[in-house]
């Protein structure tokens, strides 16, 4: 039972990742592009967590943590750059 649920979740997040990729390439504004990149990093965390369940290993925890931290910091840095013309003033 859990395999099918896993594959369903894999498909959902994979298609979501493709939607985000579409939005990164064909974005109407630069804010949408930043948002789509942030969503890609969030979806990637979910995919890695699902991969960890599938292979029954806790090895991927640090990778998820790094994705969360770097995704957040890069999004805020990009937004700050667009707002103020500089990242660290």
């Amino acid at each position: 039972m859990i395999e099918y649920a896993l594959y369903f979740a894999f498909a959902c997040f994979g298609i979501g990742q493709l939607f985000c990729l579409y939005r990164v390439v064909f974005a109407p504004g630069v804010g949408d592009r930043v948002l789509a990149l942030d969503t890609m990093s969030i979806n990637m965390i979910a995919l890695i967590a699902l991969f960890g369940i599938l292979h029954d290993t806790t090895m991927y925890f640090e990778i998820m943590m790094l994705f969360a931290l770097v995704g957040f910091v890069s999004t805020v840095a990009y937004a700050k750059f667009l707002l103020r013309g500089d990242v660290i003033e």
Partner: protein
Amino acid sequence: MEFYAELLISAMLVLAGFFGFVGSFGLVKLPDQMTRLHGPTKAATLGVGGVLIASLLWFAFFGDHYSWHELLIALFLFLTAPITGLMIAKVNMHLTWSPDELPHCGEDKHWATFGNSAERSLMDSTAEDGKDERDHHE
């Protein structure tokens, strides 16, 4: 007991996958820059939280030992999602609204992103196009 644990984890995975899909689909489907913020910052965050809780339960029931690692990541994501939403909303306002349109911020100063200390952003040249787009949506 094991059956119910599997049922719980499967239900959480399916729900989380659905919410993650809706969050990413909203990014493509919704019509407006500001409405497009809603999908990823709310639905996708809930989806990822669901997957992480399901992973936590899986390792608690079927793994060698249980840990609270995944809860840490879920908590971090739930804390940071509103902040990214706020920052991107400010970017959208900065790029598509002119300073006169913004609501008064209650003090004698103007908004910090348009103040004297703010350097001219590289993207300011597109402000006029964005304004037209926003008028069109209204």
